[in-house]
């Protein structure tokens, strides 16, 4: 019977490969799911004195959208965010990540601002605290300040429908 072993081992391997074709080796799950959103206190774009931190959103279900003015995919995502803001679905905070050329304010003035606040993470340190590796990335945070979901990449209408809406409903948004 041991003559069938190589074939069996191979079949198992093929099974894994078949599953693997549907996975993305670069998509890394966030270790923050179920953990409190890391604290920060950053100045806000467009206002010299104001600061923002996640505690400001306590009691609400909200999205933290990490974006940058130089990020092409963020431009693609922007209209979707504008739509969400118009519908008042859920408050969106836009973390301005590594905006060295200081273009955020002008860009938002030009294209519209879907965010309730735009904390300015110039050094990228807050991004590191959240495990950000690129833009756009969006976190869903619940009323108690716990991160419940992370989406890497732009939010499209399908992504919103399939991933975000069920989650938000679950959290009672």
């Amino acid at each position, binding site marked *: 019977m041991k*003559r069938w072993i*190589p074939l069996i081992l*191979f*079949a198992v391997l*093929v099974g*894994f490969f078949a599953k693997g074709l549907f996975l993305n*080796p670069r998509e*890394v799950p966030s270790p923050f799911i179920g953990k409190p959103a890391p604290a920060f206190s950053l100045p806000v774009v467009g206002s010299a004195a104001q600061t923002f931190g996640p505690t400001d959103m306590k009691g609400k279900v909200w999205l933290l959208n990490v974006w940058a003015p130089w990020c092409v995919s963020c431009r693609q995502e922007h209209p979707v965010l504008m739509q969400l803001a118009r519908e008042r679905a859920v408050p969106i905070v836009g973390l301005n990540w590594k905006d060295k050329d200081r273009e955020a304010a002008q860009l938002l003035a030009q294209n519209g601002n879907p965010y309730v606040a735009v904390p300015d993470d110039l050094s990228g340190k807050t991004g590191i605290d959240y495990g950000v590796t690129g833009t756009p990335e969006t976190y869903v945070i619940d009323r108690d300040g716990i991160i419940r979901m992370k989406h890497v990449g732009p939010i499209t209408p399908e992504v919103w429908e399939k991933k975000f809406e069920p989650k938000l409903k679950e959290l009672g948004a």
Partner: protein
Amino acid sequence: MPPEAAHALEQAAKAQYTRDSRTRRAPADGQCTYTEETHMIPELGHFAIILALLLALAQAVLPLVGAQRGNLTLMAVARPAAQGQFVFLLIAYACLAYSFLVNDFTVENVARNSFSQLPEVYRFTATWGSHEGSLLLWVVVLAFWSTAVSVFSRHLPDDMVARVLGVMGLISIGFIAFLLLTSNPFERLIPAPPDGRDMNPLLQDWGMIIHPPMLYMGYVGFAVAFAFAIAALLSGRMDAAWARWSRPWTTVAWAFLTLGIVLGSWWAYRELGWGGWWFWDPTENASFMPWLAGTALIHSLAVTEKRGAFKAWTVLLALTTFSLSLLGTFLVRSGVLSSVHAFATDPARGAFILGFLAVVIGGSLILYAWRAPKMITGGLFGWFSREAMLLANNVILLAAMGAVLLGTLYPLVMDALGLGKISVGPPYFNAVFVPLMAPALFLLGVGPLVRWKGDSLPDIVTRLKWALAVSVVTGFALPFTLEGFNPWATLGFALAIWIILTVVIGFRDRLKHGARLASLPRAFWGMQLAHFGLAWGILGMTLVANYEQERDVRMNVGDYTTLAGYTFTFRGTTEHDGPNYRAARGTVEVSRDGKPLYTLRPEKRIYNASGTPMTEAAVRYSLTSDIYVSLGEPLDEEAKTWAVRVYYKPFINWMWFGAAFMIVGGFLAASDRRYRIAVRRQESPAGAAVQGA
């Protein structure tokens, strides 16, 4: 890329366009820009591939049916079909190369991977730089091996040749179909862009010119061993003669694969700018696994040839080695693993290759399970015999191969099971591979000196005890003369010296009985050279891994730094442009004890088409060390101060020399008299006898 830069590039490309008068007129917007002379060549190439597919079908189906039925006419189709397939694939290849050389950007592959300013030699190598082009190279190389088998197989029984070529034809069908259905290199792009997107600068090195073809010669070459194994299973006939026939083909493929892997490693060392030469990247592993299995195979074949033992095992190993080659092809193109080396990935293509893999490998393993028990296995041997040593060699090499496979696939398996994502990198592989290989390297010293069937352990111990003592003592002493106690260095030195000493003892023993060096068989010379080469390579590896030094400094014009007794003085940079890049070329003067030795000129390049920066290290090669200088970033506005890295790599070239000996040894062994006599005998008039099924 910022819009101004893109615009500037476009302007530059257009300007270049009007200068390049070979095939273009200055384009007006929207106007078609290909001329009549290049119009049909890609279609000709495409058509040639289709014809090759038809010939592959003939090569596969007819001879296999013929061999099953004993029909000589059908079997005789194999040789001309294989040769015809090769000719048409060469034509297709020539068409693609031509499209690259004349900058025919209406061919999508050319537009994606080439650039008008790319030097001609790289435009040619761009033919295999992409997924589609490299697949075309794959089938060309497979057809080449089929042709070689068709020519050098006069001494083989007709049904065996028919089956071997038939199986190779089946593999060709799969790959050519894959090419035509999902990866057509002659896909048109109309309207053609004004210029191409350029070849990745990392590939613009002469390592690119020989590494892929040699690698393919190796890993595709194992298809011959695979085909021989299938032929043996199909015919039910498996004897020592079978092993003797398939051995030289396997050894040559192994030698080419060794060459391909070493070239890749050397190229990475020169190109990547930080002096590393092996990263256990999934694609590197994809070529290393067939190498490990292939090494086990050539040793297992020795037992089957000489003693008729391990038949079923050798067949399984032949199937496994080529299966690993196919697996490698899948891993690199399907997107299931993340690698610097992977081609642009596409799950649809991945699914096709996986299906093909399942059919070929699954089919061969079913055939194995069905037919292998029927093989009558021979040979009894004792605990301390050459056979036992070679079996140990196989066990360890396969355990090592298993470890590499495990590490490479574990992240995928965990992800597929929903257990999270991890990375498995060099720390893992180095930690498991070295301890696994150490016993194999020790046994390598003993094995060749042990007799077949049975030998006396006390005798061997007596013969080898001095060699063992010298190796161990030198292993411990050498690090002390350098930097002090170092267990890894000790291990490496001891094993390398042990192997070298036993190689010398091997020669001494042969010569003791009256033979002369020149009259020793090539197979013996091949073995000794290959083992010696391995030892020398390990010596180099041990020295460089344990004793390399580096400095990472900030240098202004006139600044100097010292490393390993050398003084490096930075004289600033000058502008220097290449055919498709702009560069800042640094001047570093190297001296020792006040005496100037030579000047090194590292470059920091920005490639015109893509804006990609690249560092081109300056290396001074010598027998005893490499001095390696690379420019980092300019640290001030006027680029007067630079971050410079200086490396001292002791004896690194011994690794490449050692590998060269292994490769030469392999080729030498494959050309042993007993393989050539068989061929010659057949060419005499009496040798034209026809052999039935």
